[in-house]
């Protein structure tokens, strides 16, 4: 047999192996059993078992047309079906493997941070960072995250070990026939609290070895509200660690703004006063009467309808926000 036909056979064999590998990959759990858990809001954490982790996390994902998969290795994300699924993989050996296995997907052999820095704001629906940020130094990870949130329209999905989990590159390890590189070293540890505007799904014993256990978690960051201006309803002082932002619009309670010394710590730009305490106490008064008698009630209503990112600080403010959500019933 000539060397050319041997080469072509080897090439064909490689393609077939890639296709078989891809087929096996999809058959062995490509469809995550979605477990929808209701009543969970941003900032809250769901703890679950190892087997349930991916299904529970998938239940919190919103649908996406275009997704960007940063650092997929040789296995792109399987949580969400995206018609346009872009893969950004910095390690050449993995990228080649991806190219062979997923010819229909756009693949970029590039560092994730470099790619995201160049990407336009709000240009994809979902950014996946699955088993990625723990491979970066903390500062680089934060930069990557910041850009991912900027680029995503809907959500950023992070999956990483719970805290620092040591992992060192050795040449003896390989992933589907591809040797690891130093990129596989873990350089930072992360906790759910470090991701704001997110729902966290945690398994405390996800990675098990003979002598040690490490947890893992998903943080599903709501990118749609992150860069929007916030409406802050304030009827009491904010916590010491609360940071007011440049674009915040503040509706403050009349009594609070007149009588509390804590008002000194609240920026006065974009501030309107509304009698929250009075509105909260008038729980049986109809909306029409409130509209006609309460100063700035129209402003309150209009702002609550326009802003998606609303925070209530203080009991009366929370009651007013709740009544608005209940359509003033």
């Amino acid at each position: 047999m000539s060397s050319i036909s041997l080469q072509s056979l080897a090439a064909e064999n490689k393609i077939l192996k890639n296709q078989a590998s891809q087929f096996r990959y999809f058959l062995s759990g490509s469809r995550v059993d979605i477990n929808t858990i209701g009543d969970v809001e941003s900032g809250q954490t769901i703890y679950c078992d190892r087997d349930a982790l991916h299904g529970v996390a998938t239940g919190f994902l919103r649908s996406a047309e275009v997704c960007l998969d940063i650092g997929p290795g040789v296995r792109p994300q399987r949580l969400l079906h995206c018609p346009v699924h872009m893969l950004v993989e910095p390690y050449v050996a993995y990228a080649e493997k991806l190219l062979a296995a997923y010819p229909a997907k756009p693949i970029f052999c590039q560092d994730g941070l470099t790619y995201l820095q160049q990407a336009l704001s709000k240009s994809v629906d979902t950014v996946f960072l699955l088993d990625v940020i723990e491979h970066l130094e903390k500062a680089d990870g934060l930069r990557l995250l910041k850009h991912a949130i900027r680029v995503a329209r809907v959500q950023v999905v992070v999956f990483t070990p719970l805290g620092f989990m040591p992992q060192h590159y050795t040449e003896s390890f390989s992933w589907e026939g591809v040797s690891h590189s130093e990129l596989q070293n873990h350089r930072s540890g992360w906790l759910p609290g470090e991701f704001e505007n997110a729902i966290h799904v945690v398994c405390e014993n996800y990675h098990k070895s003979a002598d040690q256990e490490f947890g893992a978690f998903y943080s599903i960051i709501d990118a749609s509200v992150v860069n929007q201006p916030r409406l802050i309803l304030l009827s009491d002082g904010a916590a010491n660690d609360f940071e007011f932002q440049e674009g915040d619009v503040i509706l403050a309670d009349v009594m609070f703004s007149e009588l509390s010394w804590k008002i000194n710590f609240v920026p006065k730009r974009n501030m309107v006063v509304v009698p929250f305490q009075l509105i909260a106490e008038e729980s049986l008064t109809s909306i029409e009467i409130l509209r006609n008698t309460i100063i700035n009630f129209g402003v309150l209503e209009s702002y609550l309808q326009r802003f998606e990112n609303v925070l209530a600080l203080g009991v009366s403010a929370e009651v007013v926000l709740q009544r608005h959500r209940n359509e003033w019933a």
Partner: protein
Amino acid sequence: MKKLNIPIVTDVPPDASYTAGQVLHRIISSLPDIKFEFFWVNHSGLPGHITIPNNCSIKRIFDFHLHGIWWVLARFTKKVGERSTVLRKVGLLVRLSMWILKTISIGLRLGFSLRKSPSRLVWCVVQGEKTVLCYVVAGLVSRRTLILQQWDPLSWWMTHRGHPRKAHEIMRKVLNWLERRAILNVVPSDAWKMRLLAEGKKSIRLDNFFDDPMDISKELVFLSDPQAIHAVFVGQFYSNAELELLIGHLTRTLAALNKKLVLHYFGHAQPSQTALGYRLIAHGALPRDELVKRIAKWDLALLPYPTEARFLETSSFSFPSKSRVYLAAGLPIIAWASAGASPDIFYKQHYSAYYHNALVDDRTEEFVSAIIEASPSQRKSRHQEATRILGEQFSYSSELVPFKEFLVEHA
């Protein structure tokens, strides 16, 4: 096993949409080998569109409403009674006589119907004084042995309906006679069962039982909220004093711990927030098993229970079926109940590590702190403990099997 055919006489139908009916539906549908003939003594005037189990058929319906000349007479005496106190008393007496006659006549007809039944046993569900009187007559006429089931003491019904104390005493004696005559008394609490046994009456405990528990630890999820404690309240949202006091107490305790209270309500009512300081989310009503799964992720369950002196018998002998749901969900329970209340005694005995009665025990902050600090693995072991208790106390094997064995032996 011989083919059993047992008549069941009840005011509330074995339809899962009614609270008590849910229990009957569950018992009947869990005994598919036995046929049940349903005699509906519909004294509450419930609508006729009901869904009953496949092994149950409606045999006869008895309507307690007055018709024709009797209705005219009742209206007339009521109208005339508005003119003077004497006429009012006369009117009341006339209507009482009519009511007794009507109930006795239904009891007679029911008794004759039951005589035709091949079964030696009749299962009667007591819900108030009318059913007591009716069953006494029916029992005498039919010459059948009775199984008597009760959920709330007679005083609960009669207090609610505003009957005079004298009537309470008379009906109590009639019920006592009926309980003695019954071959078995089915009640919802251990305290009630023990009282009946002490009086020499045969009794078992049976209420809204669960299937024998399975290991669902892999499916469990727990929610953790750094800002708030998520509490659950299931059932009728009466803004009664006990619930308000419990919420107020909990809100103050949480404020001291720099946490907020989020109250998740499940039930048919449309509740409104009665006080500031907490967030109320109404989720509507859910089927029981779905409800258990939904609430298991939260932190705490609320169990207010009547503390007024006039409901002393009720709080001592009834048992809140919502607390079984809380236990099935593996939630810690915070109650507001008198020290001798039946759930207080039960949960202190069986679930003491995760039960707290805020009315009598002042360590609420300690209890709530433990809930806040509980790790997922501790929450999981609490769920396992609750499941164990549920299996021992409120499961198919522990509650229904003894009842089924009794039916097979005596029917």
